[in-house]
């Protein structure tokens, strides 16, 4: 049924929001939405009208296209935030080009584009999970490990973050000695094949790509199989979800990684963000974070669209010089790829008094911008992902 509009709706600045759903992580769209809404409220930008559309798992091209078209054509949104991947952004690209509108892709960064985009109609605000995986593997090699085993699951392993992990390890002088990809149902989830690998490569390191519950299962599997004598573990950003970690049994031994954000980051913006999400009755996490930061970008972009009469190229080029202090530090643009960059953090996972995991932020990654510039020059060659859905939308 067509929505009814007040005549004033068309006079208001309107931001559209394309939200996916996830049966694996049911709170995903609520968290993103709350992040956007709370951020707009905090900025006292309540006059901006926020209109949402559902895009399923983010895989149905027609559903995504129609939803974006609805926001642009019927809701008069000049800026649309969408939690989608690069591939779906390509499908939506001609619509935004033809209608002179700006798409802000909110991306987990689990996949890597085969060509880094340059169109002014799309900007990317990413949590950079692939880049973070690349850095985590590089960190492992720099810590002295030269034989790596990539350990992942059927779902996480389908994204090019695995390529990021392997290429990061190779870039720092390591080589992948073995791989293990486990099933994604609890019954199929097994670390048993690692036993043989570990015996063969006792000085190796486990370069791991898991997220959500899989991290808990992974740690349980390591503990059951090796006790505290498992090989050192390195983790990507999405394995650092703190609510999940607080429920995960620590398997002992060394666990390090690269995180995009933590509740422990000690800055005023992080405190404001967490208080706002808490007071809305939700737990702050990576999804509410990306919504919170996305709203800051969208509000600025919406103002610029108004000032510049929807001249998207001008708006986009102006945004290249825009930066803001957010919960994870200063967010700024990498103009050639139209991606935002934010600090990433070196972590270690500690055992708390309950025997579960707690995150320790050691320091921010030095020179992450120049690392990113190196990362984007590496060709993905024949590495292809078969996953079209937005990350964790299964």
């Amino acid at each position, binding site marked *: 049924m067509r929505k009814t509009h007040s005549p004033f709706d068309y006079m208001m600045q309107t931001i559209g929001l394309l939200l996916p759903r996830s049966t694996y992580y049911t709170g995903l769209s609520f968290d993103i939405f709350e992040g956007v809404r709370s951020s707009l409220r905090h900025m006292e930008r309540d006059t901006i009208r926020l209109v949402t559309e559902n895009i399923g798992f983010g895989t149905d091209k027609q559903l995504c296209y129609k939803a974006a078209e609805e926001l642009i054509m019927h809701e008069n949104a000049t800026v649309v935030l969408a939690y989608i991947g690069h591939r779906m952004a390509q499908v939506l690209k001609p619509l935004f080009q033809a209608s002179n509108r700006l798409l802000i892709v909110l991306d987990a960064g689990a996949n890597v584009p085969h060509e880094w985009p340059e*169109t002014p109609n799309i900007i990317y605000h990413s949590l950079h999970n692939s880049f973070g995986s690349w850095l985590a593997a590089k960190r492992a090699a720099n810590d002295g490990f030269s034989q790596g085993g990539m350990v992942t699951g059927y779902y996480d392993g389908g994204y090019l973050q695995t390529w990021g992990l392997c290429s990061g390890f190779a870039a720092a002088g390591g080589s992948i000695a073995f791989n293990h990809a486990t099933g994604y149902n609890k019954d199929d989830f097994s670390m048993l094949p690692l036993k043989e690998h570990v015996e063969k490569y006792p000085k190796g390191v486990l370069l791991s790509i898991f997220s959500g519950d899989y991290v808990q299962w992974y740690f349980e599997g390591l503990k059951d199989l090796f006790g505290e004598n498992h090989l050192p573990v390195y983790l990507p950003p999405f394995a650092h979800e703190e609510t999940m970690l607080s429920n995960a049994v620590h398997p002992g031994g060394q666990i390090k990684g690269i995180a995009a954000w933590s509740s422990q980051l000690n800055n005023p913006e992080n405190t404001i963000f967490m208080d706002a999400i808490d007071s809305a009755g939700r737990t702050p996490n990576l999804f509410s974070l990306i919504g919170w930061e996305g709203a800051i970008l969208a509000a600025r972009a919406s103002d610029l669209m108004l000032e510049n009469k929807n001249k998207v190229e001008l708006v986009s080029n102006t945004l290249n010089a825009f930066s803001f202090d957010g919960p994870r530090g200063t967010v700024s643009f990498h103009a050639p790829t139209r991606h935002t960059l934010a600090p990433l953090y070196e972590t270690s996972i500690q055992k708390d008094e309950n025997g579960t995991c707690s995150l320790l932020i050691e320091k921010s990654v030095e020179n992450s911008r120049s690392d990113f510039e190196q990362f984007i020059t590496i060709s993905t060659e024949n590495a292809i992902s078969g996953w079209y859905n937005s990350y964790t939308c299964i």
Partner: protein
Amino acid sequence: MEQKRILVLCGGQFAFPTLQTLGLEKFLCGVGIGKGEKEVLAVLEQERVTNGLTYKSFPDKESLSDLKDWIEELQPDYIFSISFPFLLSEDVLSFGEERFINFHPGPLPEYRGPMPLFEVLRYQEKETAISVHFMNPEFDEGAVILKEKLAISPNETYGELAIKLSERTAMVALNMAHMLQFGSQIPRTAQDENQARYFEKPEVADTFIQWKRMPADEIISLINACNPWNQGADTLLQGRNIKILSASLSENQHTDIPGKVLNVTPDGEIAVSCLDGQIIHVQILAGDFGIQTAERFAAKKPVLGLLFNS
């Protein structure tokens, strides 16, 4: 929803990546090839035999009389034109309003005409565009749906830019196909006639180096814009036609008259004076002697002090 069927009218290899992409994505229902060279037709024939591709050759204007009937027979949902060398008549276009979409390899309305790649390079643009527009009975005048911009690299030649545009056109064509498949309406913007410029196919006057009028960067841009389709930019040396295929700007300056060979560098490049005090280093030349490096050319013919266009 039924997949849209798209007929592509094209002029040759430039459209091959698009044909491949639309074919893989099951949008392609046929290919019309205008003025197709033997090699191109051979590839299409091979595709017909192995993959059942429907194609038809239109070697000249007269053969276009069959085009309307062929389109009626195929009944495509849309017709994409990618460097198709002929203007489509009103009769052909009457197959369906808004069914004909042209992928013009240059910014519109500023660079209308058959060879926008040459013009954007000659005019030293920093970026170009693939302009996707609805077709009408005039060349490159219909309402623009979208413009896909892409940067021109320093010293990029016509050939290099054509390859880049050809590959990008495939992506734009697929995006456009998705838009037609999923969109309920196609936004478009009428071209601003005040900004419009039409460039005819370049003639010798356009490809000729005017040593007494052109500064060094303009000469190098012209040379790049003529490589390889014209085998380089035209000039004269001792009354003989010469084409310069490759040259670069020197860091040195001069105070001599323009168009004079100042020296042959240790790398074998021919240093030529330009109007603005700059010097260009010629690396490759062509003529009735074939295509040669400047080093080889200068070894056989004493060039020091010679004047181009004299």
